[in-house]
């Protein structure tokens, strides 16, 4: 390192409030996410619906060790994920995030995925975010996605298809709308139970995914700036940065030296 050069510390996100702090936490891979519940590996496989429990991982190519490939320096630099090394199929999971005090939201997922996972393809929509990975890598990632603070069983949902409903009012049990009714509230255990997999195929046995977070917890974990948690209009630092980004991109074509007082 050259003399006098400051060590790079990612700032992750601006803002002094709790929501900004949560954004910093979720998008910083050095920080651990709080674990809220336990879901077994087999239940995760059932929810995903890509293979039967106990079945082998189907592959689309032989293991990398068995392949003779043309020399490529990048392949020497990037360590393959276990799924890529084994030749797994690419599979997906899609989460829908409620509009009402969600512990994570689609673009929040996208940034979290990019920072915490490897070998991924992601698209964020208005209510959902799809994640594609090699099959065994995806199953491993699912532990974090279902068991930690970013999953609220009532307002986060696995929806591989028919994802509509994120900004609808909640149902009488406080669950996010699902036209395929993949999940219900078990009144006896007070836990949310999946009776269908993410594609809406009926499961042989229901899969419980934990109790809904309380309203207080929802508000505490809300990743969106909301009028009754941390109003967006008082996020001075965030708004300053957004405005500067807009100016740089729109008025200066990414050339900061072109910005003038008149702009």
């Amino acid at each position, binding site marked *: 390192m050259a003399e006098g050069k400051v060590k790079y510390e990612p700032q992750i996100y601006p803002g002094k409030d709790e929501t900004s702090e949560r954004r910093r936490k979720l998008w910083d891979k050095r920080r651990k996410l709080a674990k809220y519940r336990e879901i077994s590996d087999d239940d995760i496989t059932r929810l995903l619906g890509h293979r039967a429990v106990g079945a082998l991982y189907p592959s689309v190519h032989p293991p990398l060790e068995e392949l003779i490939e043309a020399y490529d320096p990048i392949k020497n630099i990037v360590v393959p994920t276990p799924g890529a090394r084994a030749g797994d199929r690419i599979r997906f999971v899609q989460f829908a995030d409620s509009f009402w005090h969600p512990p994570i*939201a689609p*673009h929040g997922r996208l940034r979290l995925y990019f920072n915490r996972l490897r070998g991924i393809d992601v698209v964020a929509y208005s209510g959902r975010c799809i994640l594609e990975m090699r099959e065994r890598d995806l199953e491993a990632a699912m532990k974090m996605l279902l068991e930690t603070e970013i999953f609220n069983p009532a307002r986060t949902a696995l929806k591989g298809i028919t994802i509509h409903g994120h900004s609808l*009012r909640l*149902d009488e049990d406080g669950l996010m709308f699902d036209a395929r009714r993949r999940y219900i509230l078990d009144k006896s255990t007070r836990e949310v139970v999946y009776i269908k997999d993410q594609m809406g195929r009926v499961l042989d046995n229901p899969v419980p995914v934990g109790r809904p977070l309380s309203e207080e917890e929802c508000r505490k974990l809300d990743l*969106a*700036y909301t009028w009754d948690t941390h109003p*967006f209009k008082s996020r001075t630092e965030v*708004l300053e940065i957004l405005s500067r980004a*807009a100016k740089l991109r729109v008025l200066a074509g990414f050339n900061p030296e072109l910005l003038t007082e*008149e702009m």
Partner: protein
Amino acid sequence: MEKRKVLDERAGQLEAREREYVRELYALSKKYLEVEKERPLYSIMQKTFGADPFALQDSQMYKRGGYRQSKRKQEFARLGRQVAVERGLPAYNRAVGLPIGQRQLEPFLISGTNIMVEQDDTHHLNNVAIQQMLDDIKRTVIVNLDIAHRMLTVRAGKEVTPETINLYLETLQHTMCGGAVAQEHMSEINPLLVKDAYAKVITGSDEVKDALDRRFLIDIDQLFHPTRAEKLKEAIGDAIWIVLRIPTLAVRMADGDEAARWAAMQNTMAFIASYGLSGEHIISDLAYSFKHARVVRMGNKMWYQRMRGTNEPGGFPDGYICDFMQAERDLPARRFLEVAQEDEEEALKYSRAMHEGIGGIAAVIDNVLWLGFYMSGGIGFSNTVASAAYSEVMNEISMELIELSHRYMQGVRKVPLRWETVRTMVNSIIQYTMESYEKFPTLAEFHWGGAHRVSVIGSIAASSAAMLTGSSTMGLMAAHYAIAFAMKEGWLRTGWAGQEIQDHLGLPYLCSMRPEEGNLVELRGLNYPMQSFSAAHGAIRGAAVYAAMIGRGSSWCLSPVVKVAFADPHLIFDFKHPKLCIAKAGIRQFMPAGERDPVLPPH
């Protein structure tokens, strides 16, 4: 180290201040939540959902009987069975796919009317007014007659007088309806099939106007507020333009490009007949002038992959789309800021006019017709995005801009074209809109997709900045700031289908005037390269252009001739009241043109 220490201390102070501010703000907001009940939005949502607009839970969800809660869906299910039986092949069938109607299928009120429609009524195949709006645009061509008149006098030695022009105009009505004038034994058309075909004159000269038969005139003085008429007439001058409208049926059979061909042929024949012309040198020059010289088509051709002829939606410039709009034409041509400073009620009229045009025309052309039909083959989602702009919500939210302008901008002569100045107002209005969604769960359910909210928030931002500054470019920048930065960062969600890239793609080119990168917003269009494409962006550009015109107190956006051409009362679709037409079609009370009944067996 010293500097860092000072910064840390200041940061601590800032943090404390910010926290305190937030606490106060939240306490205040809660206190004033009751006041929100007085907003028109409260009653709109109450009427739409029949429930408490603030309620976060819907106790009737999943219990409304599925699709049967909607009369229209019931009708479709019955008709689908009927079609299946008649043709011996399954058709529309509610037994396949996902169950519809687990949520409330709420009807909605179209703004400016008392008409409630169901969502399906605004699908472009169900709604004949939407079809007629597009047909009326596609079948329009405007041609300058001065070149033809000069050629007649100089080269053919003919005299052009008021009498000859009136004779020509009468002949032209006949030829536009497919009548023969120079050759015997031609196939002609049943007049009932083409009763919507005609031609009318535009001029800015009182002298020329007085000499013409009034039946053939689009009278600027009658149709526009005197202050607007004065500006339009000055811009058009003593030139004579003929607006040719070919039959709806013709553009339905071919496409918009047919308009210029039909018009050129029939216009040439009318000249031949009324002036007694012959000879290749005259006829070919006439045909050239009617096909190419000073011919205004409503849209350009598109590139090969999206191949359509001229006069098709992807080629409409945004400036023309906003000149099709007529909602403001009875209002004095005054700058919006001036009006808002003086009188909030009066300013509301300008704002309502703006949303009538944006919601009834730009949102439909962009979302329903271009993206939802021409580009993606007719899925129903984009129709629901457009319907976000039909409702009263946009007018309601815009009242905030009027109130802010009236209260806080007294004495401001002109809002400078500086982002640093404009963004304060833009941020206020965006945050107000976002908070409306947060406070009214029913509104968030009403606009249930990100594209709906992108459309609303983008249009509100675009129109606010453009109305205050009179600049369409500033409007565009505000809109993209709203959806690609502010809305996305506040909620961590944007619109549909990877809008992450689509909102950002055009940002570096927003303010570029190089045609291959950006261009004046009025000259861009739905199919313009290097800009962000997605549902709602066309409505946003429309909002920027139309609101800028209203902000400047101008009388047209891009072409005074196009503006006047769409004021024509003979048009089937009323471009001054587009939402009323769409609403009437929703309850089956709008009669379009181009029907084939005169040549069909009795049915």
